[in-house]
């Protein structure tokens, strides 16, 4: 047998930015260090935890003698996808009443994005020009681009979203980029809780965005990664999505239940399909089933059962919503404390964006040099975009983080490289 491997030329995959940050943080021997990037809602101890009511529901489900471990249908648990669809669109949505909205249970948000991308790649505009360019916001969350590429989508472009001078979302450049996009392009939009900036379009911004997209026949692919954790109210968090549906758009929406239920390792997600008519929904769902069979065959059952139980039980639903409000309040409090610390340190410039942004993420507005300073001199780890997960800032690390940001901003750029701590 030859000793030579068929994979001798396979290179080691280069770790992504998140991975590099994480490794560097773990290797750092300093007692005073902080990692400000995470994809979970972290508690005070720095862990993604279950919502309080979840464990109780889990035990309930575990002791149910009627439950078997039999395969779920390919498209998932029907009660789950129905509940997920209602949560996203509102129970009285015309699209639901007209039987032209439905979900496919997926492996978390990533699975939903991947399935949506595969559907677009195979079936978008059959007979016409196939799936053209797909636009992502600049900056954009972690693995969205890679997931689209995994499905074979090559032409990925960006639209302007974060305005570095205003330190906020700016609608004008986005609208301009939409005007310039080829007709029929797919536009990926965060319905709320934008990752990684936390900056939100206003309702009137959304109306303008919808108008251009309608006129230029651009296709919305919404992401709804943590419904309820932006404004503390699931309905509010889905406003933009519901608005587009009310205008008659057909669209896809990737829903994740990882963060808003604390069910990260259960991989609960749904790809919402809204079509023009119900016959089309059936056809697209059948093609989705075919794609799913070759990806993961059937989705896992446990997490979906739990979410379904909660969403369909009034008492549990109320408890869940209350839990979301508590989580959002804590996030807002962390933002307030950070801004207040910076103010007390006498940091120059405006820092209102820290408390104006919503959801897990916050774009600090720090430059790449300032971020480099934070990482290498202050042992505060965050990505080059300057975006952080606010829940990664605990009471214990708040002072160090605030002081480090202050130093990064106030140090002379020429001297930034020479300072040591």
């Amino acid at each position, binding site marked *: 047998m030859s000793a030579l491997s*068929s994979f001798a030329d396979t290179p080691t995959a280069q770790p992504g930015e998140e991975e590099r940050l994480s490794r560097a943080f773990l290797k750092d021997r300093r007692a005073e260090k902080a990692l400000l990037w995470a994809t979970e809602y972290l508690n005070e101890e720095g862990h993604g935890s279950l919502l309080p009511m979840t464990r109780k529901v889990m035990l309930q489900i575990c002791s149910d003698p009627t439950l078997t471990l039999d395969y*779920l249908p390919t498209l998932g648990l029907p009660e789950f996808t129905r509940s997920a669809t209602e949560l996203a669109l509102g129970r009285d949505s015309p699209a639901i009443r007209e039987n032209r909205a439905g979900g496919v249970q997926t*492996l978390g948000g990533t699975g939903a994005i991947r399935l949506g991308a*595969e559907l677009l790649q195979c079936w978008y505009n059959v007979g016409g020009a196939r799936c053209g360019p797909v636009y992502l916001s600049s900056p954009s969350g972690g693995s969205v681009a890679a997931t689209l590429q995994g499905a074979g989508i090559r032409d990925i472009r960006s639209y302007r979203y974060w305005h570095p001078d205003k330190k906020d979302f700016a609608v004008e450049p986005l609208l301009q980029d939409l005007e310039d996009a080829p007709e029929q392009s797919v536009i990926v939009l965060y319905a709320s809780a934008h990752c990684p900036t936390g900056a939100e379009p206003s309702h009137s911004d959304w109306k303008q965005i919808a108008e251009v997209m309608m006129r230029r026949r651009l296709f919305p692919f919404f992401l709804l990664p943590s419904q309820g954790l932006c404004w503390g109210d699931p309905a509010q968090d889905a406003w933009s999505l519901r608005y587009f549906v009310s205008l008659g758009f057909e669209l896809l929406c990737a829903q994740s239940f990882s963060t808003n239920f604390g069910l990260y*390792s*259960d991989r609960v997600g749904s790809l919402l399909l809204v079509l023009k008519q119900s016959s089309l929904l059936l*056809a697209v769902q059948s093609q989705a089933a075919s*794609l799913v069979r070759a990806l993961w065959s*059937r989705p896992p059952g*446990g997490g979906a059962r739990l979410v379904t139980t909660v969403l369909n039980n009034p008492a549990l639903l109320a408890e869940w919503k209350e839990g979301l409000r508590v989580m959002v309040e804590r996030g807002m409090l962390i933002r307030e404390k950070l801004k207040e610390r910076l103010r007390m340190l006498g940091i120059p410039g405006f820092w209102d964006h820290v408390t104006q942004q919503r959801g897990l993420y916050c774009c600090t507005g720090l430059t790449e040099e300032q971020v480099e300073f934070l990482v290498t001199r202050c042992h505060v780890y965050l990505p080059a975009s300057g975006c952080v997960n606010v829940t990664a800032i605990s009471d214990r690390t708040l002072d160090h983080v605030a002081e480090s940001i202050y130093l990064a901003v106030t140090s002379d750029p020429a001297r930034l490289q020479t300072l040591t701590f």
Partner: protein
Amino acid sequence: MSRFAEVPQAAPVAVFKLTADFREDKHPSKVNLGVGAYRTDECQPWVLPVVQKVEQLIANDHSLNHEYLPILGLPEFRASASKIALGEDSPAIKENRVGGVQSLGGTGALRIGAEFLRRWYNGKNNTTTPIYVSAPTWENHNGVFGDAGFTDVRPYRYWDAEKRGLALAGFLEDLENAPEYSVFLLHACAHNPTGTDPTPDEWKQIAEIMERKKLFAFFDSAYQGFASGDLQKDAWAVRYFVSKGFELFCAQSFSKNFGLYNERVGNLTVVAKDSDNASRILSQMEKIVRTIWSNPPSQGARIVATTLTTPELFAEWKDNVKTMADRVLLMRSQLKAKLQALGTPGTWEHITQQIGMFSFTGLNPSQVGYLIREKHVYLMASGRINMCGLTTKNLDYVAESIHEAVTKIQ
């Protein structure tokens, strides 16, 4: 005007349609021999006692959280799963050249392996490498490799309908004639749908040609333990190939042998030439996983890992697996006995010679149609039956129905 106006309805999957038709059938004697899961003698799904026990342990362990698993999965699961496939004392494990990728059942493992091979095997992004699947095979094999980008998925001869056994000569000839570096999808044991496995001697002949022709071995192992009741026996082929120095993939499923169907527990075991190759391969697989499911579900992997690494639980599991395998063996011998007692034309030795969940009865499509329409006995058009659909209560009815079908229809 919809962007999806011209999307056609996808063709229904035969086995799902069969189950749907069965459900709608109101006939009191109906029997479902198309079901793809284990059933007890009461025709009920069976949560393994050891699984129930471990589920309780996990539910009451408050130190366990629901945070994201690593992309490649739960480390204890990956290690113990690969160990169960390759053996405690596998030289490949000792030499640190084995890796595992926790996957979404066997399908997920196959998909990761296929996506990796398309990117990095036989050149870069070579979509034309021939992928050989047995004739017949589990129909999803075509879908998985096709969707991963391979354009040339072809059959290798496997089932000899006339002699109702392995088409060895044809199989070996197809191996000889395959272009170098072709990928061969091999069923580790309990071939689906025929239930017919090569003997150890036949595996040796297969391996000899594959080594000589530089063919890549990709095993599909969905029934380890479930086939013969013996974990080691069911892994013989994979371990033999490893002992001959092959680098290979083995897509493992724990759906059947743990009854964990809806937890989606699988593992892609990678056996590489050396540990450096293993690391590089796994690093690329990690990138692929990140874009499909990001990280795998924890529940099923925890159940399997806890069971495999706790001696008393491991013993209990082997016992539960043997219970399932024994029931299948009993149904096989009883069905054969009944058909022979009825004097049903033809030979029925293959019923007990075949192994695992499925049996290729040899019934032709007209006979199958008769069974479904007239007798409400549901089975695949290929003549495949799931032995788990048989019970001591319906055995007589099924045997008589088969007898009728064979004598009335040629």
